[in-house]
């Protein structure tokens, strides 16, 4: 048994999950990316370039903000890891800067990406502009309607946004289309996958690029909390990239890890083992094995699976996964805005909604400390929640 959240080796397995379930035509590309990532990750020069860009360009380290008024109301010590304050406004930039540097190192000229809420698409378009690469972003037609602002941002940044009109026209279909496109263009294009999903090495590589969230937060908690380690570490989970990066910093501590899913897209809670988009994990599917659509108020969480490492953490009991309703999420967004002056993304508000509920019910004991990753800012969501307020 290897240490949790370490290198999954050449098979890319996290217990029963993970792997590399892709057509033969993509195997050499996956192997090449794995080799390039292993090489880069062991190269201090690469790590330095990444750290420098994350600092001078993306705005790291992000602060850990004590939510003083909300903490008082909830009777817990709530600390917010402020990924919303990064350049482009979400944690997605951490992964994208890393992968874009890797693509450049591999001599690729174009980044392909899928996007749901548009945050990963915007981050990819941004990194492409920064490094002089082209970007093609696949986005479900329904998400294009829901997240118009992010589509405009990608256009301004010079990315090509390709509407995906098949299936449920959301994130899962955007993934299918990005992979289909990748098969045909592995020579000049690099698939910049946005979450801890996909064939090996993506779940591992993306977690490593997001690990910076957890490592910073752990050091900041040590300075902020008398006990050094929080009682709870909470993050929202769609595919699970901000949660994976956050958990990676705390998996070796006593902190209880909680991933919060949307009720309508809760693969960790209601999914069954399956194979989708190149990996084996827990997947929402009907009794016949057809993948079902995820539904939530947050486009970024509308994914019918979770990262394979989350499935493994769940099975082993190291992390637990809970769900919240759209209504709780919108209420949490407004409450945080009015108590702390922070408008967070609907995705991030899933984590907050669970903390509010659990603190209210006593599940989180009064006086506990909670470190919550606020994965992104909510500007993109204001228009869509107007009618829910």
């Amino acid at each position, binding site marked *: 048994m290897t240490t949790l959240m370490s290198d999954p080796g050449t*098979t890319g397995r996290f217990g029963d999950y993970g*792997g*590399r*379930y*892709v*057509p*033969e*035509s993509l*195997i*050499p*590309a996956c192997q090449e990316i794995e080799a390039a990532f292993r090489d880069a990750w062991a190269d201090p020069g690469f790590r330095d370039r990444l750290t420098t860009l994350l600092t001078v360009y993306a705005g790291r380290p992000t602060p850990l903000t004590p939510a003083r008024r909300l903490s008082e109301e909830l009777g817990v010590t709530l600390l917010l890891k402020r990924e919303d304050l990064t350049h482009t406004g979400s944690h997605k930039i951490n992964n994208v800067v890393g992968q874009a540097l890797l693509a450049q190192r591999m001599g690729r000229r174009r980044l392909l990406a899928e996007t749901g809420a548009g945050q990963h698409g915007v981050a990819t378009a941004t990194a492409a502009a920064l490094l002089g690469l082209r970007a093609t972003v696949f986005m479900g037609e329904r998400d294009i309607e829901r997240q118009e602002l992010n589509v405009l941002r990608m256009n301004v940044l010079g990315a090509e946004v390709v509407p995906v009109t*098949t*299936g449920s026209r959301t994130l*899962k*279909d955007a993934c*299918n289309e990005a*992979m*289909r496109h990748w*098969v*045909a*263009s*592995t*020579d000049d294009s690099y698939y910049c996958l946005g979450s801890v999903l996909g064939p090996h090495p993506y779940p591992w590589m993306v977690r490593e690029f997001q690990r910076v969230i957890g490592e910073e937060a752990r050091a900041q908690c040590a300075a902020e909390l008398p006990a050094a380690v929080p009682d709870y570490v909470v993050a929202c989970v769609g595919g699970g990239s901000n949660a994976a990066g956050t958990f990676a910093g705390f998996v070796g501590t006593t902190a209880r890890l909680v991933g919060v899913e949307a009720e309508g897209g809760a693969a960790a809670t209601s999914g069954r*083992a*399956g*194979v*989708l*988009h*190149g990996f*084996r994990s827990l*997947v929402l*599917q009907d009794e*016949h*094995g*057809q*993948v079902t659509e995820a539904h939530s108020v947050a486009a970024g969480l509308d994914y019918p699976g979770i990262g394979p490492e989350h499935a493994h953490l769940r099975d082993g009991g190291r992390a637990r996964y809970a769900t919240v309703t759209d209504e709780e999420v919108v209420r949490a967004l407004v409450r945080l805005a009015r108590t702390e002056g922070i408008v967070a993304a609907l995705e991030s508000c899933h984590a907050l909604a669970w903390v509010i509920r659990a603190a209210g019910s006593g599940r989180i004991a009064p006086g506990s400390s909670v470190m919550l990753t606020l994965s992104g800012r909510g500007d993109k969501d204001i228009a869509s929640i107007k009618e829910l307020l």
Partner: protein
Amino acid sequence: MTTSLETFLLARRATGRLLVPYVTAGAAPGWTDVVRAYADAGADAVEIGFPFSDPMLDGVTIQEASDRAIAAGTTVTGILDEVTALDVGVPLVAMTYGNLVFQRSGAKFCAALAMSGLRGLIVPDVPLEEAGELADAAVKEGLDLVLLAAPSTPRARLGEIAARSRGFVYALTRMGTTGERDEVPEQAARLGRELKELTDRPVLFGFGVSSPRQAAELARHADGVVVASALMRRLLDGARPRELGEYVASMRRALD
């Protein structure tokens, strides 16, 4: 019929080029008549697609066929029920994605296919490294698990694929999804040549085989072709089994 897919194809290869047409099960009512029409028109085997909601390696035509089939209530169990009653004189080969195969277990899936008389299985998103248990289960059930080879596959790996594939080796003509294309890529010729050097197993080209002329051109570099999207587009446009059979017959004539 108890002959294995590979034995059957090897016997057929002795007298000519191999032709394997495809149909998505449930894409149209009476799809089993399409299977019969293919066989009557001179198919050497028939590939039956078990529709999946997220067919990563398929282009728009087979995506649409799959969507239609699923919307019409097509399930693995339903397909197997219909296939059990179907004896067309040539082997039937299932093509589907890993999620359907691993629903219960690869072993149970293989057992169910074999029970219904299918002779082969193609699972494009289960490559060599992930195929171990499934390959064992297939062997146990007398089912030939066909592996894919791509233009991007390095030679050493091609050798391993050729050695471990059963039935035939499915050579992809191009990097990309299923779907019709006009040209015959140079990389296909190279892949066909390499595979023929590496194995005596039948080597069939698939992806983008869009006309009888092209089928004949490709078959020069291997043992034959799989034809899918060209047929499925006609089926989606309303072609009857008889018309689809005529198209397969035209491919047959071009190959012979």
